[in-house]
């Protein structure tokens, strides 16, 4: 990697030193080094995980971008690639894993299912998009996205990281970063943040002309 990428524009460096010295800002060097050593979490959900493996394998070779270090532990990972359908049964674990990741952390929603439910959106056990619970940085289209589009997604994430500014980053703020409350598997999945709304809706008097919203057939 040349140092030119991190030089500030119009830096006047003597020609002899151009390959040894770089004049840059703290933001730039900080972002440059972070964006080129993104460690994804080794975390596959569904079909897209197979394409993620292919991306890491020899033909597409993720390591060209400094991302080959797949970490099974969330504590060591920078990017969570949500690769596949997010189900209600799995979302508590996904949120827990996200909470366990150390800052700075990024999320890529890989494929149609993780982005918005995809072909399975209407399913009763499917969360229509992982962004209902955790913040997503990059969405990748496709079902499943090809390895090329995953690479494109990761490069997009790199570009996003390069634009970050230390004083405004989430993880250097004085106040604590609030953890996302873990969704609970009740009679159906519920988000603790929505408790009041749920309680309000389920205690509403039933209007006669409206169809009943409760599940039709209990055990």
């Amino acid at each position: 990697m040349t140092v030119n990428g991190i030089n500030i524009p119009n830096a006047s460096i003597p020609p002899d030193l151009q390959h040894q010295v770089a004049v840059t800002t703290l933001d730039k060097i900080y972002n440059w080094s972070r964006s080129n050593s993104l460690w994804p979490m080794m975390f596959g959900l569904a079909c897209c995980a197979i394409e993620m493996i292919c991306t890491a394998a020899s033909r597409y070779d993720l390591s060209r971008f400094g991302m080959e270090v797949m970490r099974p532990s969330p504590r060591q990972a920078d990017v969570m690639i949500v690769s596949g359908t997010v189900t209600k049964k799995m979302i508590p674990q996904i949120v827990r894993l996200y909470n366990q990741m150390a800052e700075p952390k990024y999320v890529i929603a890989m494929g149609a299912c993780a982005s918005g439910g995809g072909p399975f959106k209407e399913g009763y056990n499917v969360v229509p998009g992982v962004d209902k619970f955790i913040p997503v940085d990059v969405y990748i289209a496709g079902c499943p996205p090809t390895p090329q589009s995953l690479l494109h997604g990761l490069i997009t994430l790199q570009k996003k990281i390069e634009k970050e500014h230390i004083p405004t980053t989430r993880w250097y703020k004085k106040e604590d970063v609030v953890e996302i409350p873990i969704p609970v598997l009740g009679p159906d999945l519920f988000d603790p943040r929505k408790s009041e709304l749920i309680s309000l809706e389920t205690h509403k008097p039933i209007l006669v002309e409206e169809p009943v919203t409760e599940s039709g057939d209990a055990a």
Partner: protein
Amino acid sequence: MSEQTANHPLYYEMANKFPDAIILEVRSGFFGAVVKSQSLLDVAKTLRDAYSFDYLSAVTGVDDFPEDRMEVIYHFFKSIGGPQFELKVFTTRNEPTVPSLTGLYPGAELQEREIWDLFGIKFTNHPDLRRILMWDDFEGHPLRKDWKEPFYEEDVKPFKNRWPEGKARHSENTNPFQDNVQYPREFNPANWTGEADHLMYKSLIMSGEQSSNIIKTDQLVVNLGPQHPSTHGVFRMVVVLEGETIVNLRPVVGYMHRNHEKIGERNTFLQNMPYTDRLDYLSSMSNNFGYSITIEKMLGITPPERAEYIRVMMAELTRIASHVMSIGFLMNDLGAYFTPALYALEERELILDIFEAVAGSRMMCNYFRFGGVVRDVPEDVMKKVKHLVENRLPRKIDELDRYLTKNEIVRTRCEGVGVITSDEAIAFSATGPILRATGVPYDIRRADPYSIYESLDFDVCIRNHGDVYDRYLLRMDEIRQSLRILRQVLNRIPKGPVISGKPQYLAKVPAGESYGRVEGPRGELGFYIVSDGKPNPKRYHVRAPSFINLTGLAQMCKGAKVADAVTILGSVDIVLGEVDR
């Protein structure tokens, strides 16, 4: 329908034997026996012991709403091959109970749990009747016809215009919670004290098994998964350990339950084809194959000869791609991190190139149609396949073989680990490499031939020890046999059309039912379809080999070390898309 009529004398014989219990049901598209639920066990025992129908392939339920009736359907086969024997049990919708067959056929265990979960049919004397795909506290039984999901729009597709007056209508906006959820009346999340998994831990403690160690240690429950690098997806094993020895194990599935069957019953017949790709996403062509032959049985059409050859070609390429990947990732589980898998993935990529060339997508091919395939294989792709089959793959498979098979670590980690005997494998309804590695030559391509497999020359591979090493070797053998099939296919493939008749968007499937099965890379992939003559299936069930192979997992793991559980799971080679559907 010749293969379905082959067993008819037996149905009459059984009906004579149990005049009070069995009623033959004959109508167009269906021929089978209906058993009274109180005599189900006797009939099944006679079938198993006197007629050697020792292999219970699939159990599933059907909801006959609005009639007050639910059905449980059993598909029996002989492990020496031959057509099926189908039994039905009727029960009411209000209090559905059916005796459990787990005592006679342990392979029914997980399937009966699935029926309880999705239909609410209780199985008396089932050892561990808990929900399996959904969680314990979930409200309702989703596959009942009158149960509606939160994003319910209409009963069947194609839905009416989703863009009324040119504006997009999102399901989120029609739901009061702006999400895919619904709650019973009077439900208050603040008072919720339910605890996930309490029933499972209870059942593990209840089973109270002890190892025969002289030194007694405390039992420890360890959860492997659902996020674990070696579980091949979102699979969870709850293991009871004594020291490092596994005393008991429960597979916990459902983390990727994407409601394949509920969505499948809303879809039209053809709309299900791309969904089948996403079942076993490592072998989408095989899934297409199984689904299309099931529907073709009902439609009564046969594909033209060229299409049959193309289908077999694609299915065998899929098998190779899936098996090399399985071998590569078994090595991953043994600790050879990623290097063998890289070799395996390299070959898989070349096969995926062919799929991409013919179908347009690497993994989700959606290539088959009822009565053929969607488009012809171009000549230059044929050349690529030829090169792959005749030059590259045999060389590369030998290379893998040379690197791995005699490796000291592979042998010590795999030999004698995860043993299952042939009797146990049949009883647990295991299929595919698991069953054949125990010495049972049961391969549907030979046992109940479909497509053109009868005219092809290949051997059913078997190995005799039933351990992890044999499953590995068997997959190697099968790759070689697949190459043998492919060579014949490439030499013989005729010219001609690739689809019979005009391609149809709306298949007019007559009323009736059909159970079609193919030998997928992981075993018997079955589709059970009930049609009532409408454009959508009334019941759409997938008999997923990976799911049913898991029934025997606890048996394979008992007594092994905890590190071996990872290896054993790798050798069972599950794909979660198919396990959870």
